[in-house]
């Protein structure tokens, strides 16, 4: 979708158009793959937490309180790709 298409969708609340784009972006142009990638990222995020390892919660708290929305949203995308890479099932060409 062109950027204008996405902006119009955001303005009019067309959530289907927006999530469709996210799935395409995460799924290397394939919406069904994109859905699986979203699930995969969450599974990879869950696994390391099962044994309650220590996490740098101060860093997380500081980041969430100090950083702006654009940075945090960008980080969300970065974390998605980081986590799917962790799974070992990399569906994209090229390198991060």
């Amino acid at each position, binding site marked *: *979708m*062109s*950027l204008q298409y996405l902006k119009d969708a955001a303005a009019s609340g067309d959530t289907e158009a927006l999530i469709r784009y996210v799935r*395409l972006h995460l799924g*290397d142009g394939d919406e069904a793959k994109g859905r699986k990638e979203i699930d995969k990222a969450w599974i990879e995020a869950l696994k390391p937490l099962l044994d309650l390892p220590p996490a740098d919660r101060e860093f997380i708290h500081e980041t969430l309180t100090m950083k702006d929305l654009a940075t945090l949203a*960008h980080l969300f*995308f970065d974390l998605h790709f980081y986590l799917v890479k962790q799974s070992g099932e990399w569906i994209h060409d*090229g*390198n*991060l």
Partner: protein
Amino acid sequence: MTGTSSDREQLRPGLWATVNERYPGSMITKPDLVPLARLEKSLAQTRLTFVSTAGVQPKGTLPFDVVHPVGDYSFRRVPSTAEPADLEIHQLKYPTDGANRDLNVIFPIERLRELAAEGVVGGLTPDFFSFIGYNMDPERLERTLAEEIAAAVAADGAEAALLAPA
């Protein structure tokens, strides 16, 4: 052994249509043609630059933004004296296995240096230019990044430019 005519077709047929279907309005169509700038001198007297859309950059610099949903509209300078070992690629949109083994398959920096050393090409600009071709806002790309790179190419004294991938 000669190949059939299908050997000379692009390996991913209908790429424009496919991408435009998935991301309508994202693919560029230009109905008009830009008049050719003429090569003033012979190639052997011409200073050449190289512009890459492959996401090649010097190691240790901030990676190109491959996760951003709308794209990365920045460019990097890559010294034309750089060794492939000092460079890395960041992009997600096409296979880099060949380039990972031999960067010249996508960024022929060593071949260009050889041609300059042999005098086939008059010389190279001090820097080549690199960005990521993937972006969802072609208008922004044209307005900002395309103009920035074009200005830098001209300011650096390039008398001709090779671009790839395109």
